[in-house]
């Protein structure tokens, strides 16, 4: 991401907008700047802010007078008055930041099948998690913290050592050079992203082991994690297997994503591409 220094008027609106706190106003330059180390290329500033296309020189003059008079103009807080943000072309390995951080940008050139997966949202047609099995989505970095791939690898290595099965159609699994050990491509390990999800599957009797591993590894890596844990319901639509286990282990689960079972296979010819962005 770039802030066009000819356009920026240092209004500071974008500072609060950035999920990573990567934008600041340099008082010497009197322009907003981006800390490239902290920026994860999520595009929130570029896409999420509304824009005017005012003349920067005029805006700076007005702001200068207002500042001298100690007037405070009360602009809309999500507006860039001059449209100063510009999205630049990224190359690997930095491109990986955008792939995992910007929910609306597609990057088929990397060979990664989208950013998200279907998880159990399509379990009624995919049967990804069948009776007696438990699916996990282990999410790193969200909300608002971010994560390094090296930290994700610490988790995937620990999980691999415990013998879990990684979901093959998951972007992180695609970035592994060795799925058996959970090793991730070395060139991207220093890169920071807004979030990523590791997906695994186990039998029901391994729930406690997996949850403990995640908690233990999270102590060693400087980020936040969130676990989604899923199962298939019985014919009455009830979960009498996983929920009792979670209760026994002391986990609360107020919220859930519930697949209502309305899907069925309708394709006559299988397609190879899709751009699902999860909900």
């Amino acid at each position, binding site marked *: 991401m770039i802030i066009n220094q000819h356009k920026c008027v240092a209004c500071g609106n974008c500072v*609060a*907008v*950035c*999920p*990573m*706190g990567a934008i600041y106003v340099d008082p010497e330059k009197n322009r907003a700047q981006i800390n490239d180390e902290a920026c994860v290329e999520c595009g*929130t500033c570029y896409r*999420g802010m*509304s*824009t005017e296309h005012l003349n920067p020189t005029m805006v700076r003059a007005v702001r200068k007078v207002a500042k001298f008079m100690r007037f405070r103009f009360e*602009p809309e*807080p*999500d*507006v860039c008055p001059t449209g100063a943000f510009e999205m630049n072309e990224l190359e690997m390995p930095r491109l990986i930041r955008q792939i995992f951080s910007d*929910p*609306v940008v597609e990057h088929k050139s990397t060979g990664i099948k989208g950013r998200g997966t279907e998880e*159990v*949202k399509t*379990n009624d*047609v995919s049967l990804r998690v069948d009776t007696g099995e438990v*699916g996990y*989505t282990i*999410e790193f*970095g*969200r909300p*608002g913290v971010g994560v390094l791939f090296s930290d994700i690898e610490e988790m995937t290595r620990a999980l691999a050592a415990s013998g879990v099965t990684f979901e093959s159609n998951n972007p992180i699994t695609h970035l592994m050079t060795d799925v058996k050990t959970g090793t991730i491509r070395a060139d991207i390990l220093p890169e920071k992203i807004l979030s990523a999800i590791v997906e695994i599957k186990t039998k029901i009797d391994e729930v406690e082991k997996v949850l403990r591993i995640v*908690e233990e590894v*999270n*102590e060693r890596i400087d*980020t*936040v994690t969130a*676990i*989604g*844990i*899923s*199962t*298939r*319901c019985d014919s009455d639509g009830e979960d009498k297997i*996983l929920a009792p286990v*979670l209760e026994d282990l002391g986990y609360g689960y*107020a*919220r*859930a*994503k519930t*697949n*209502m*079972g*309305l*899907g*069925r*296979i*309708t*394709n006559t*010819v299988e397609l190879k591409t*899709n*751009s*699902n*962005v*999860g*909900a």
Partner: protein
Amino acid sequence: MTNTLHRYGDANSFHDDYIIFAIPSVGKNDKDAIPKLKQFLTICAKHNPCNMGNGNRGSIAPDKGLNPTAHWNRKSAPDWQTVIDEVKKPGTVAAVFTTKADAEAAFKEVVESDFGISVNISSSVDNAREVGKCCGVNRHSVEYALAFNDPHDHLPNSQVLELSTMCGHGMVSFNMAKKMLEMVREGRRTSAQAAATLVRFCPCGVYNPQRAKRLIESACKVQR
């Protein structure tokens, strides 16, 4: 990505938060899915949603061509038709409802339409179960959200978390949520205006502006 699963709050705080979304499965039912997804959104639009989205655009979106009068007269009306028209690829489409009655009515019509595409409800565990039961539909699968693991104390207070996590892709920053709370506390914006500002950052259209308004009002009331 788990864009709606990890909303912060207890079960009661989701009493006005029902997200119904449709998602085709790659290679299973994505062929000819686009008209079905548009029809899904058209049905939802009839039942008083507070937001809808197609994965790329929400019903209340940023405006890239504002003129300066916007600072005094900002529009924040939802645009359902553009969301429907801009479904260009098979992907997730979603609608957010604030009452059980509206969610049930929309879901019932979706069931009757029999699109053959997976439909999920993201809310409290009981909310989803009850909406299904009203239409005689049993749950197929369920994914529970466990609490955040935050051993290094990165996360802000619960008021900011509740507002920020309604965009599960993380596009509503902690600082923006804090700024909106401050502006309302200082009387510089109404709670509705602050909620409308936050909702524009969610490109999937799953942010719930009504819940945000309620949470902002509650947070500012506590402060007083």
